[in-house]
């Protein structure tokens, strides 16, 4: 499997965010997207996720399931965590597991793998920022998607949480997955780097 972007150009609000961008990542590889604020890291991830339409160029996933689009084979972990405070932790996760379909796994088990099982029946409103992030990460595990698109995944995570996340990313890469992560901090895994300088 190989994820590649060719000659990507992104324009937002009349301003060119980046242009002529090339990248690629194969099965088992992680791509770390770095760069200063406003360089377009989030925009790039959203272009890959299919949430933004590039002004030029294209993103392609070779070797995936032919009848599915790239965004249907990807998990997107953004700044906003898609959690409903009125629902319990377990209800939040079970909903996404069921909605995203795929091969369902036990939601409780996913919670256990991010060490949130003790909080399964609490309203998500009571969670701290780090716990919310863990719950979002549990969503990545609940349904298998080969491509993970992560926007600042380790923000708000404590040391234990980061270790845990590194382990989960290694598992994913070991299973032939692809990770594209926008980050300021070293991810703790072997990565190829894509440095974005931002538009001049």
């Amino acid at each position, binding site marked *: 499997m190989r994820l590649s972007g060719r000659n990507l150009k992104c324009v937002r609000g009349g301003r060119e965010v980046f242009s002529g961008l090339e990248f690629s990542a194969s099965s088992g590889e992680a791509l770390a997207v770095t760069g200063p604020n406003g360089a377009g890291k989030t925009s790039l991830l959203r272009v890959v996720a299919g949430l933004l339409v590039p002004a030029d160029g294209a993103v392609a996933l070779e070797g995936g399931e032919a009848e*599915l689009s790239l*965004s*249907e084979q990807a998990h997107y972990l953004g*700044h906003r965590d898609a959690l409903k405070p009125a*629902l319990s932790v377990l209800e939040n996760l079970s*909903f996404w597991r*069921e*909605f*995203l379909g795929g091969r369902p796994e036990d939601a409780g088990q996913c919670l256990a793998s991010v060490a949130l099982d003790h909080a399964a029946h609490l309203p998500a409103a009571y969670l701290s920022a780090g716990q919310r992030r863990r719950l979002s990460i549990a969503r990545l595990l609940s349904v298998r998607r080969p491509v993970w698109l992560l926007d600042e995944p380790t923000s708000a995570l404590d040391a234990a949480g980061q270790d845990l996340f590194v382990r989960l990313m290694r598992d994913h890469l070991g299973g032939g997955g692809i990770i594209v992560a926008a980050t300021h901090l070293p991810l703790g895994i072997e990565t190829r780097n894509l440095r974005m300088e931002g538009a001049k």
Partner: protein
Amino acid sequence: MSALAALIRRDVRIALRVGGGALIGVLFFLTVTVLMPFAVGPDLALLSRLGPAILWLGALLASLLTLDRLFTADHEDGSLDLIVMSRTPLELACAAKALAHWLAAGLPLIIATPALGLLLNLDGAATFAVALTLLAGTPALTFTGMIGAALAVTMHRGGLLLAVLVLPLSIPVLIFGVAASQAAISGPLSFGTPFSILCALSLISFVIGPFAAAASLRHGLD
């Protein structure tokens, strides 16, 4: 299908939990209807003549009011991104969300109609007619209103803009809804004609609403 069922279950659950707005819509409907006699006077004959119109206007405003949050909440917390990316067609997801909204906010309005009919001096048959037209017509209000909600979320504006966008679209539903209930109460038209048109409007909105909403969400997300 289980994905859509999960979406409907989640939305209904949120609407009924603390902080959800489902029951506030009914309360708004009640309050607006109760206000009318203070404006037109407690003349029971007049009220029973105006009754269907008052109830329809109240239901229209109440369903519009609660539509505001249909996509905004999911947009703000990022759920909408994941819904757009999922393997469920966005049109179907929009339809499921609208259906959930109707179940949580539209159905209670119809259940409240008999009590309000009593206040407006409508007899049993008239109340039944109004409730029936609301049952056939409120889905159309929700599904056309959904287009406005989708447009409003991509423009980052809600509230009044939504009202201005949606109210003109709901004029046909209002016309045939009130006409059908008036026909059932006093004639001279037969009830069947306007009621069938009302049902047809609902069916058309089932088709147009999800497609238009999905299109505007797809092109408007950033």
